[in-house]
């Protein structure tokens, strides 16, 4: 009941609200994706690349000092150890194989933090395909190391100057590119957003995360089911992957953490479930931050990957149905959580993932609880922010 239905909806959310110019491409995807990705040849290459290229399975690490401090059992799912430094590559590998199967030669993508752009540039290099990445001019500045990486990998990075110059606008521009280049181009979306079948497709490619968590927990604790799974939500792809195989078991608490920026009601926030209402963004019906007139508002978060005024339709459904609990963390809370993990466990998380960690202090755990935090990415790209904003008195 938590998976997409035949019409492309999760409850009342999802669907394909697209201009006719995109219809043929979306229809082509919708009609073929399940058959392609379930074929033996696809699965064989996908699994091989996840193992030998991405470095999967990623470890499930028991964070002892953090566990002691919180009086419970914290496990970190180490997506930060994936090749290119975040979970985004799982999806990029899946979609590049799909693009190849569809005979597409030119790959376009949007990126916020740059992690999806880097992942896309990486798989395009691997497959020898042309790569164009749209990135908000504001994000290009705050995630400069990733811009340099994409260029080194041979991708063309196009700055987007419209709107808030962040992820939403980069997505608009990528969609316009696809409208203008319908024949040879594949749009490689980076999260569980966009028109059906993208949310389902991306969730399936990311579901490897919860698949691995199950067998790793079984080996570590004798029980494959945790009490909590915690993940940050920008569009929601790492959360979708971490929740995927736990959705049907209601005893497992699923915690999604949004970015509340400078505070939910500060006017500078990206906490979509708290501030949004039902609307249409980037081709699907979901919860959207908007004015009463239906104009999408500009979100804010210190974390470029969470700076998005919507969430994927699957998450809108998990939120309104109560299946998942949505919490939020401010810029400051995320920064503190990142410094804490660095000191306690020797791991510098991505700013996005730091939001998931920040939620730990908002929940009262029992000593016997097993808590999995999806550490979606590493902090290399955020070193400038960590250095500039370092305030020892916060510790």
């Amino acid at each position, binding site marked *: 009941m938590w998976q997409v239905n035949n019409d492309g909806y999760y409850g009342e959310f999802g669907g*394909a609200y*697209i201009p*006719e*110019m995109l*219809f043929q491409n979306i229809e082509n995807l919708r009609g073929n994706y399940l058959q392609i990705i379930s074929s033996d040849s696809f699965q064989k290459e996908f699994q091989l690349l996840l193992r030998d290229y991405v470095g999967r399975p990623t470890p499930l690490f028991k964070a002892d000092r953090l566990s002691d401090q919180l009086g419970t059992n914290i496990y970190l799912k180490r997506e930060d150890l994936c090749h290119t430094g975040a979970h985004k590559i799982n999806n990029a590998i899946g979609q590049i194989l799909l693009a190849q199967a569809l005979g597409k030669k030119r790959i376009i993508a949007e990126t916020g933090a740059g992690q999806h752009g880097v992942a896309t540039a990486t798989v395009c290099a691997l497959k020898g395909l042309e790569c164009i990445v749209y990135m908000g001019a504001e994000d290009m500045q705050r995630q400069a190391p990733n811009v340099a990486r994409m260029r080194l990998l041979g991708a063309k990075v196009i700055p987007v100057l419209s709107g808030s110059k962040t992820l939403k606008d980069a997505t608009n521009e990528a969609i316009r590119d696809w*409208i*203008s280049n319908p024949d040879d181009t594949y749009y490689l979306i980076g999260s569980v957003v966009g028109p059906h079948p993208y949310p389902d497709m991306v969730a399936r490619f990311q579901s490897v995360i919860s698949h691995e968590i199950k067998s790793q927990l079984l080996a570590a604790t004798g029980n494959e089911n945790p009490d909590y799974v915690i993940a940050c939500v920008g569009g929601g792809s790492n959360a979708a992957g971490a929740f995927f195989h736990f959705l049907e078991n209601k005893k497992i608490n699923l915690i999604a953490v949004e970015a509340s920026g400078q505070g939910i009601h500060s006017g500078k926030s990206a906490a979509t479930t708290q501030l949004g209402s039902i609307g249409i963004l980037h081709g699907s019906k979901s919860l959207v931050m908007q004015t009463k007139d*239906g104009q999408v508002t500009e979100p804010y978060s210190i974390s470029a990957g969470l700076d998005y005024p919507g969430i994927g339709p699957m998450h809108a459904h998990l939120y309104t149905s109560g299946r998942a609990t949505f919490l939020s963390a401010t810029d400051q809370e995320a920064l503190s959580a990142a410094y804490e993990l660095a000191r306690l466990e020797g791991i510098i998380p991505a700013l996005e993932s730091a939001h998931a960690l920040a939620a730990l202090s908002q929940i009262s755990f029992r000593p016997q609880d097993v808590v999995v935090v999806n550490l979606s990415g590493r902090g290399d790209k955020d070193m400038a922010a960590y250095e500039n904003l370092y305030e020892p008195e916060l510790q």
Partner: protein
Amino acid sequence: MALLADLFQQKKNILSIYFTAGIPNLNDTTSILNSLEKSGVNLIELGMPYSDPLADGPVIQKSSDVALKNGMSIEILFKQLKQFREENNSYSIPIILMGYLNPVLQFGVEKFCMTAKSLGIDAVIIPDLTPEVFEKEFQETFRKAGIVNIFLITPQTTEARIRKIDSLSKLFIYVVSSAGVTGTQANDDFKEKYFARLQSMKLKNPLLIGFGISTRKDFSLACKYAQGAIIGSAYIRQLEGAKGIEEITPQFINSILHESK
């Protein structure tokens, strides 16, 4: 739907102009409408600005930004239209509203259709409303209010789908002239082949061609194969200039309708 239906009954070489409501200034809508009607335009597509216009190129994107900064909304637009219709006692020029689905949803689809109808509007164009979603979710509401939803076809639309859209359509079909967002220019060869293919399909609905029509030459080519054409970006670019609306509009419309001497 008398205004629009009559137009398609009576007129060949229909010139339709698109502009975004709320530019250059919030309250210029009625003077632009008046100037267009006086200059001999047959049909007006009035754009309702949206923050994320996916199918639009830079010119219309920018016009939407300006309009929103000026404070335009569907509510205000309806007030301006009421004023336009009442002031001139002018129910003679057909107007179509064009905009994206989200603002219409938030306004309320039923209220939107009823208000539009009361202002003598017969049809709307909502590019991100697919025929599939329309049939399932909105057809009844539109039908009750007497509002027609105009569908788009593109060079990528298959013959089977064109036939399906033709059977769903009333008044006319909007032909997107090339693969691209608004303002994109395709080469004439490509366009002509595509238009000829459509013409030979002998669809039941008349065709209007839009996207990338900016000159008299483009307009004439479109009129060879369709009942008329729509100009958007090229007119909006004129409105961005320093001259007044009273001067710009007749000059521009003349340049499309008449051979320059």
